[in-house]
């Protein structure tokens, strides 16, 4: 496996993603955890870029970094009163750890046994984004799911307002 800039980039992004994830679950300071989440999300955006899905990358940054993590951070700051509590891990953490480990083993096994090894890769057609846009708006494509998603978002919006208001 030769070291190429792409590999390096991938390594950096993967480290961002995984390290950030680790920070999220391991850090006691919730705000830091949130910041780590941002980091991890950035890494993932980078991975999208490497996967030649720049659209998704941009959306990732816009939605997650720009919106969701901001929300999360604000929530943390608003509910800061309990941040004195040092105990961040509950009693069942061993179970969690075991479950996680087993999952990792299973997934890793399946991945390595099934998807390892090089394979011929076709190029991404240049007009992917245009086609995606068309597909979202055409009834042969994903019009209905698209509408459903928008309804979902509307419902979430209203629901959030109703739940969170005094």
């Amino acid at each position, binding site marked *: 496996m030769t070291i190429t800039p792409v590999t390096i980039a991938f390594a950096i992004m993967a480290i961002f993603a995984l390290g950030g994830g680790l920070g999220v679950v391991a850090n006691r300071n919730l705000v830091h955890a949130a910041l780590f989440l941002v980091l991890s999300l950035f890494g993932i955006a980078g991975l999208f870029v490497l996967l030649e899905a720049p659209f998704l990358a941009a959306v990732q940054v816009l939605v997650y970094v720009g919106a969701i993590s901001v929300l999360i951070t604000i929530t943390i700051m608003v509910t800061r009163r309990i941040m004195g509590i040092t105990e961040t891990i*509950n009693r*069942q953490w061993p*179970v*969690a750890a075991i*479950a996680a480990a*087993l*999952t990792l083993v*299973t997934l890793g*096994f*399946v991945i390595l*046994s*099934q998807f390892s090894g090089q394979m011929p890769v076709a190029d991404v057609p240049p007009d992917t984004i245009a086609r995606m846009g068309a597909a979202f708006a055409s009834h042969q494509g994903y019009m209905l799911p698209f509408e459903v998603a928008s309804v979902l978002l509307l419902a979430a919006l209203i629901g959030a307002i109703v739940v969170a208001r005094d």
Partner: protein
Amino acid sequence: MLFMNMSPQMLQLLVWLIPIPPIAAFFIILLFTRGNKLASDLVAVGAILLTWVIAVLVLIAALLMPHLGEEPIQASFLWLPLGEASGFRMGTLVDPLGAVMLFFVPLTASMIFIYSTGYMASGSYWTEVKGEAHGTESHGSDEHGEVAIDSAGRKVTRFDATRWKARFMAFIGLFAGAMLLLSVADNLLMLFIGWEIMGLCSYLLIGFWHNRIYPNQPKRITPVGASIKAFMTTRVGDVFMLLGIAWLYSFTGTLSFRDILYNPEVLNALNTPAFPNIPALYPMSVAEAIGVLLFIGTIGKSAQFPLHTWLPDAMEGPTPVSAMIHAATMVSAGVYLIIRMFPLMTVGWDGHHLTLPMQAMTVIGAFTALFAATIATAQRDIKKVLAYSTISQLGYMVAAVGIGAYVAAAFHLMTHAIFKALLFMGSGSVIHAVEHGEEHAHHHGHHFPVDFDAQDMFNMGGLWKKIPVTAWTFLIGGLALSGFPLVTAGFWSKDEILADAWAHQPIVFWVLAAAAFLTAFYTMRQIGLTFAGQPRTPAAEEATQRDWRMNLPLVVLAVFAIFAGYVGVHEEFPVLGHLLGGNFFHRFVGSTLLVEPEKLPFDWTPVLLSVGIALSGLLVGWLVYIVKPLKAGQSDPLARLLGPIYTLLENKYYFDELYDLIFVRPARWFAEKIVYLLLDRGVIDGFLHFVARTFEWLAFRNKDFDTYIVNGAGDGVAEGIGNLGDSFKYVQSGRVQQYLAVVALGVLMLAGVFAWALFLR
């Protein structure tokens, strides 16, 4: 002009619409405006006036049609398909005869509706108090609040007669709708439907004041009794009529008037022997048999001789009911039926010796006319008099049809409906006045026996001053009834019948003439007793009635009672004949038949005879009852004249008692002894009880099984599950993450299984 260019479809649609509004009013009132008297009045009156307008439109259109007789306004649809060819059709038909119906039915109906809104707006009657004196809900508020004890030991109190006014309006609405349905029907079935609805309404309305009783007169029939009696009696006729209809349908395969009555093939076909293999009945043709059956229906509906007893008792209903059902419309329906069926009745009539139904009609009609007239002379109750007079007049018409005087019968049907309705409403107005008088007098401290009868003519007298409008209109009606020459409608129609009778059946003529004499007499008697002289009771002293809703219809009908006759003046009648365009009515209605009935040459004899008879009858009545009017407490001078016959007449030849003896009692006995005790109690109940006991025994055995085995098992299961739940509920820790952990592990297991199944093997 509107009617000239009215398209046939439009016209047929209008005809369809005629019966709708009153029926609609019925439903609207019962469903929505029941609680509100004013609204109900408006709905009902509005509906009937709408109907009247439509009817008038149709009527005018029909009159403008050149050949209404040949091609009438007709429309029908297949209602109940039977097989491919045949089936019951529903349809409307307006031919000249129907047009006549459309002329007087909506007219009188509308008048009576308006009248009812006034008549039902006040008044009260005695009712029995069950339990607590101050009524339970079923009796509601009583006007005076006093409770009396009558001779039969019943607690009685006054009851507000206006309580169910809305319901009343609804019922008469339904009734009017049914009558109009019958009038525009183009087939026997539809006619029969209207016929039966009217029967029902008559039942409902006669018994309308269903909680009314007559204190101190336990023998007197109550509204409930009267209604049952009327219903039952008419049923008898209806059953035979239905038989006739069924026979007709089975023979011809249709019930449509046009198809049967106006096509010679069918009529000829009907002219075959009914019972070919019974020599005794051989001469009777199918048409005759059916005709007789249908005529029996008429006997029931129009209260002809054997089945006449219900009509006088029907007077227990509110007076508008009497006016509408028992004068203008329903009883006329019977006559309308035989007129309508005239071609069938006269199958095989060569103009000289009558067919079987015609004979029956002639005999029964003529007899009834005289017989009822005799009874009418001796009645005390103002409405009873009118009732019997109605019977006798209907007898006239029946007899007229019997002798083949088709047009005359239709003519008299129309005029009689108008002036008899007028008379009834007049009598109602009188009764109202007297009841008011009674109340006023009561307030002024006069004490009345609880059995004071506001309908008894001997409690009246001298009302001429009190209620002039009623008096005048009543007079006009009375003169019309007794056939006062030239200026009343009754004269022309009755005269035509008599002329026909004179020409064909002299005997019938003399019978009817006698009846006419009596008619004139009792009319005068009635007027005399009611209006002339001095008041005989404080009630009459204080009597008053000035309600325009009741007076307006009187006036309107009075006008018609005078002028309605001029449409049918014989063209050879001096002066008037030409003046009035020569017997339009005869030409118009005559065109209904295939062969125009022949016009009799004008003959002075019957005219003069009938005039003389009418005038003499009036004169006698005038002499007896008006020249020296009765004093209070004085008995009927006629009683002295006739002696025992008077009592016989007063008791209506004891017909009620006779029927009670030969029909009612045996029926009661049979019902009680045989049906109730033997069949019901003995056989049916016995069997049922046996079955019941058997199953009871089985059930107990079953119960044990249930308790010990089924319940044991069931409860066991339930308890087991309950315990299980108790021990397992702690799984529900309420900790989301715990659940999630379990989920994760479960999924993990599944994943492991899949991984093993897919990749490891």
